[in-house]
Structure formats: C-alpha cells, structure tokens
C-alpha cells in the first residue's frame, strides 16, 4: 500500500513495482527526441496545468474505485457546479463564499450518489450513470444551453486568477492539484477512514464484521469524488472565464483512465494516489505530445487508446507473474 516511500529500495525494484513510472519515462524520453520544445520549462508548465483538472477529478475517482465502485457523474458535477459558480461570481458574491457554496453542492451531490449506492443498494455504475444524465440535463436547463460568463462584478478578475494565475512562476491549478494529492494521500495512508476505504474495497463483509459502518465509508468516498469534481468545476470556470453547459463531457473517462493506468484495481482494495498522479500526467503528456506533433485529432484518440491499453497490460502482466 505505502509504495510512496523509496527508502531502502533500489531504483530497479521501484521501477518494477511501479510500471506506470516506466511508461511515463519512456514517453518523456521519446518525446524529448521527437520535439526539442517538449522539455522546455514553458511546455512542462503547460502540461502540468492541463493535467491538473483531470488529476483533481481522478483523485476523487481513485477513492470510488478503491472501494470497488465508480463515479460516472464527475463530468456532469463539474458542469453544474461550474455554472452555479459562474453565476454567483457574476452576481458579485464574495469569492470565498462562492467557493465554499460550490464545494458544498459537490458534497451534496456526492452524498446523493453515496446514498443511492449504500442505502438504495444500486450498482455504482447505474446510480452514477443516472445522476450523470440528470445533472447534465439540469445544467442545460440552468444555463439555457448558453455559456455563463463570470465577468460583470468587481470580484470576477480575482476569481479568474484561480484558473489563470501564477505564483512563483507556477500556475495556481498546479498548487491546487498538489494540495489535493497530499491531503488525499494523507487521508488514505494515515487516517482511519483511509484504512477503512482499502478494507471495504478488499472485503466488505470482513469490514462490516469488524464493527465498521460500511455505508458511512461509501458516503464519504462518493462525497470526496463530488467535492473534487466541484473543485475541478471551479478551476475550469475560472480558467475559461465562463461556464460552458457541455463542460466536462467525457472527463469521467479520462479520470478512470488515469486511475487505471496508475495501477489501481477496478475490483477495489489496491491502488495509490501516487499511481493516479502518474496516470494523470501520462494522459496529460500524451495530449500535449500529440498536439505538438500535429497529429490529427482523429488519430489522437487512437494513439491515446493504444497507450492506455499498453500501460494497463504491462501492469497486469507484472501482477500475474510471481
């Protein structure tokens, strides 16, 4: 579980335990030969900024997948929370309040998913497929199908800094991503609820028999996924200066891809935030690289699909061998 530490291991062992890192290195080395712009500071920053949104969503997805579940609604949560945030900012509400309210909405939606899955005994796939469609519809109703601009009040510019600003030459979303990584890693590895998350994903019955309220863990996990999707909604809206009604479509798939490339098992119980971080960066680099190499957008998806499959196959092979 705690594959985060490098203490007492040599690099060979580390790489064989962390195949995603190998894929990442191969990708970086290949690209640095193919394009001399790739390993420039400005491009690295671009990749990290582009990765940050998927990384934040994928971190929430990691929690859901760790308990053997899934959250398909994250893209729609991003859209509706983004739209609400945009109209609140435009109305001149205090920025801190906007952020808190938006995250709360994400929390409530996450809890709703959690309730449908725990108390309602729905399959996570079905429950979140339902809320995904429902929320997308609500977003279209709320926005009337038109983008909502964040501008129009004196706080708009400050809000947009969340997506566009820099601190010490590094974009704000990158800091947000790192903070999310750290808190999630700490939660999973050092808090009771994190331990229970792994236990629930490995053996729900045994977890229940150990006196743990498994329903509460499910609520927590989907709440995390909801809050982080809302956080991504804030970043996207701030970056673009407006909320698009179709924002976040398909983001759930990139998030799932990042989690799975990072070595998390869809069956639950196995996986790390470190892996998800690597997975998100791999996807970010791929997008960046394919654009840089001017691959037609049709072929981009083909290439992305192939890399996802290779990464997962490598990981699978390693796990089967003993």
């Amino acid at each position, binding site marked *: *579980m705690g594959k985060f530490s490098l203490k007492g291991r040599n690099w060979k062992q580390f790489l064989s335990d962390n195949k995603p890192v190998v894929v990442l290195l191969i990708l970086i080395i290949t690209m640095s030969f193919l394009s001399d712009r790739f390993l420039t500071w400005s491009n690295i920053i671009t990749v990290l900024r582009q990765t940050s949104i998927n990384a934040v969503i994928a971190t929430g997805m990691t929690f859901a997948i760790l308990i053997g579940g899934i959250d398909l609604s994250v893209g729609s949560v991003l859209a509706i929370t983004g739209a609400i945030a945009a109209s609140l900012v435009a109305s001149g509400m205090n920025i801190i309040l906007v952020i808190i309210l938006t995250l709360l909405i994400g929390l409530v939606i996450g809890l709703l998913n959690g309730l449908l899955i725990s108390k309602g005994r729905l399959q996570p796939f079905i429950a979140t497929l339902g809320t995904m469609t429902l929320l997308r519809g609500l977003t279209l109703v709320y926005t009337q199908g038109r983008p909502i601009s964040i501008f129009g009040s004196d706080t708009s510019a400050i809000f947009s800094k969340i997506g566009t600003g820099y601190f010490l030459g590094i974009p704000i979303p990158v800091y947000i991503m790192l903070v999310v990584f750290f808190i999630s890693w*700490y939660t999973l590895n*050092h*808090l*009771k609820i994190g*331990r*229970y998350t*792994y*236990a629930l994903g*490995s*053996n729900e*019955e*045994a*977890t*229940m*028999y*150990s*006196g*743990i*309220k498994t329903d509460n863990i499910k609520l927590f996990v989907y709440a995390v996924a909801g809050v982080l999707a809302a956080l991504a909604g804030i970043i996207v809206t701030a970056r673009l200066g407006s909320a698009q009604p179709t924002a976040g479509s398909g983001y759930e798939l990139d998030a799932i891809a990042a989690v799975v490339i990072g070595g998390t098992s869809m069956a639950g*119980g*196995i996986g790390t935030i470190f892996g998800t971080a690597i997975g998100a960066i791999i996807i970010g680099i791929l997008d960046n690289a394919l654009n840089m190499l001017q691959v037609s957008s049709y072929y981009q998806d083909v290439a992305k699909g192939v890399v996802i499959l290779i990464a997962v196959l490598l990981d699978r092979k390693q796990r089967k061998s*003993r």
Partner: protein
Amino acid sequence: MEEKIVSMENIIKEFSGVRVLDNVNFNIYKGKIMALVGENGAGKSTLMKILTGVYLRTSGKVLFDGEPVDFNTTKESQDKGIAFIHQELNLVRDLSIGENIFLGREPVGPGGKIKWRKLFDDSREWLTKLGLDEDPRELVKNISVGKQQMIEIAKALSLDAQVIIMDEPTGALTMSETERLFEVVKELREAGHSIVYISHRLNEIFEICDHVTVLRDGTLVGEEPIEKLDEDRIIEMMVGRKLSEQYPRVDTEIGEVVLEVKGLTNRFVENVSFQLRKGEILGVAGLVGAGRTELARTIYGVYQPESGEILVNGSPVSIKSPKDALKNGIAYLSEDRKENGIVLGMDLVENVTLASLGNYVGKIGNIDKSKERESTDRYIKSMSIKAAGRNQLLQFLSGGNQQKVALAKNLDTNPGILLLDEPTRGVDVGAKKEIYELINKYKQEGMSILMVSSEIPEILGISDRVMIMHEGRVSGTIDIAEADQEKIMTYAVGKEVS
C-alpha cells in the same frame, strides 16, 4: 500386490528457488481409496496440481498405467481420465445441473445447435447412477452443497475418469450428506475407480480409505495400509512429534454471569436462552443448519433479534450492529474467515487493528503506526504466528496462521466475551492444538467464551458446559462431566435423552 494406476516418483517442485516438494513418491492403486494427509502447507495440493497438469514439476517421473506421462494442462490429464474435484466447487451456479455436467462438451447437431434433449437425458442417467433424483434442468444454485458435490462427481464420471481426486469433500456437508457421499465413494471403488481422498478429518479416513500417504513440509513421511495405523499414529506422522494430548484442558474458577440471553428469537433461532459465566467455555454443538452460527451472529448484531433480550454484566444492551457488540465487549470469530473474518489483501498489521483502529489514533487524528506495529509484533510473538513479517499479506499465510490473525483482531478489541465460530475449521492438527491453548489462556485470563463447533471431540475436549441446538432451539445443555458423543448426538437430532 496391488496394481498401481498412478505412480509419481521422486517429484521435486520449486517455486522461484524455494523447494516445496522434495523427492516425493506417491501411488494410487487401482480400485482403491488413497488418503493424502498432512498439515496445511505440507504440499498436498501442489502434488495433486502436478499430477493434474496445473503445475509443471521441476523433476521426477509420473507414470500412468505404467506409461510415463507429461501433463501440461488440466485438459490433458482429464483426457487420460484424471478428475480433480476442488474444495471450492467449480460449478457455474446460474446454469442447470445438466449444462454443468457437460460444460464445454455439449452434444451438438448440425450447425452447432446443442442437442438439449440428449444433454439432459444423459445427465439424468449419470444422476441416477449416483442415486440422485434431481431434475437436470434445475439450476445448480438451487441445490444443496452436498448435491453440488455429487454433480461434480457426475461430471467426473461422465468424463470417464479412472482417478478421482477429492479435496476436503465433506468440509461443507451435513452428516447425512457426508454419509451419502461415502456410499457413493465406496460404490465407485467397487466399480473399479481409484480415488485420492484429501481430508483433515481422520475419522473419515478410517471409515473409507484403504491406504494413507502422509506428507510433511514437502517431504514424504510414509505410505501405509490403513490397518497398520491409528489416529494418534497419523497425527504423529503429520506433525512429526508425539501428541500426548490433542485437547489440553485447564480448569479455572468460574465466576459470575457475564452474558445472559433471554428468549432470543428471529428467523433463524427460536426462544434461545442461556447464561455464560466469567472464565467459562460454553460449547455449542448441533448439526449444520441448527442455527448455531446464526445465534452467534445475532448476539454479535449481524442479524437482528425480533424478540428477546441480551444482558451484559446484568444490564440489558441493545445490539444492532457489530459495532454495538464490540462496544459492549463482545467479539466474534467467524466460521468463514476468508468471507468475513480477515482481509486477504491487507497485511498482518492492518488486519490485527482493523476492529480496534480507534485505539491507535494519535493527536491529529492520524493512525499511530508505530503503536500498531508494536501491538502486531506482540501478537505474532505470543500466538507464534508464522509469517515472513508483519507486512506480509494475509493471502500468503496458511489457514492456521490466518486464523490466528483473525483471533488477534478479536482480542485487540479487548473483549470480555468471545464468540468463536468453528475456531479450528480448515486448520491443521498442529495449529489446532495451539489455538486450543490460546483459547484456554484467554479463559484463564477471565474471558467468557462461547464456542460453536461441529467437531464433537473439540467440544468435549475444551468446553466446561455443552449446549446443543436443534432446528433453531436449544435442545439440551449438559455439564462436561456428563457429556459424551452419544448424548450430544441424541440432542442434536432432536430426540429426548432417556
């Protein structure tokens, strides 16, 4: 001299350099039943997996009917006529009996259309041979485990199996199902089939086997005809030392009533009342399905009572979940540790503290990992748990050691009342005794223990009192001084003792 159908000679098997079988010889005689016994980890399954082509041997020879053979897949061994019936049955629960028997070998007509009538007719024939009147169209999930076992045998016979390997076939069977299985096994022997019978239950081996092969730590201890052996001798061969007494008894002073159950009733149990005292082991005997596990789980809060009362130390308590039970000092060791006792994908530390993690929380809500490690090491030492280290995943431990970890998890909640459900199921003889000794130790420390067990010798061996259940009710309670096998069985089948 008996004729050998299979003879494995000087088998060596290594897994990444670790030798798990060392020069083992193993014979199966035509028309005979060979018992294969040994503690968990002795190499029984590995040996059988080599015979059936699941594993490749590192060196050695396998002869079938005198011819050297080399099975690379289970299919190849099947084609020669060797069938392996695993402990966890390999049936597709949502398919019918007939479809299971002919899975992958369905009779087909032109265009690949399955000849359903032929399939079901043939299935019925095999079922009839085994004395089953089940409809071959019935889904497997709707029949009892005992009958599922028979379906596996039917499948083996339909494959024209000359050699049938059975791994712990009676583990989940009721007494009558076990008897039925023995009849069938004996009939198979009469019909000239050869059988390998793997079991921990020595009385079964004496009932049906002709020869016994004992393995220990991957080596052959010996092969003897059954007449030359007795139970003690087999145990000695398995564990490599004299077992002076398998059931160590300790007498303690029994104190006041700690747990009292009054008129407990739900869909599993009816009007169950009993008292459990400090420092006492109350054995709960009965047939499979008598409601013993369900009683323990109702007390533990997994199932809800419809009426009745539970009192802990004299005051009524409301237990709606395992969490409530643990709060009241009641811990439960599950009969099915892989299902709900332990987390196979977690290590020793995480398993030991799973139910008591609240005691390991540091100043800022973080888990105090060094404290966790200390406690786990203490259990590893005091219970002599054999593991590569505290960070080994539970899936790599033997059954006995997994059970010790499950027990450690319970103890770490600091319970006053310990509900043990089949505490030595799937545990080898040597580890059994260690577990009895641990139970005795906790009794001496003043814990009150309720022990559900299907093994009557175990009940007689360490309980202070025996409560027998029949169809959800308590049919009798006997003091250990007056208890014997016969009395327990009489109550267990629901008869009055005269």
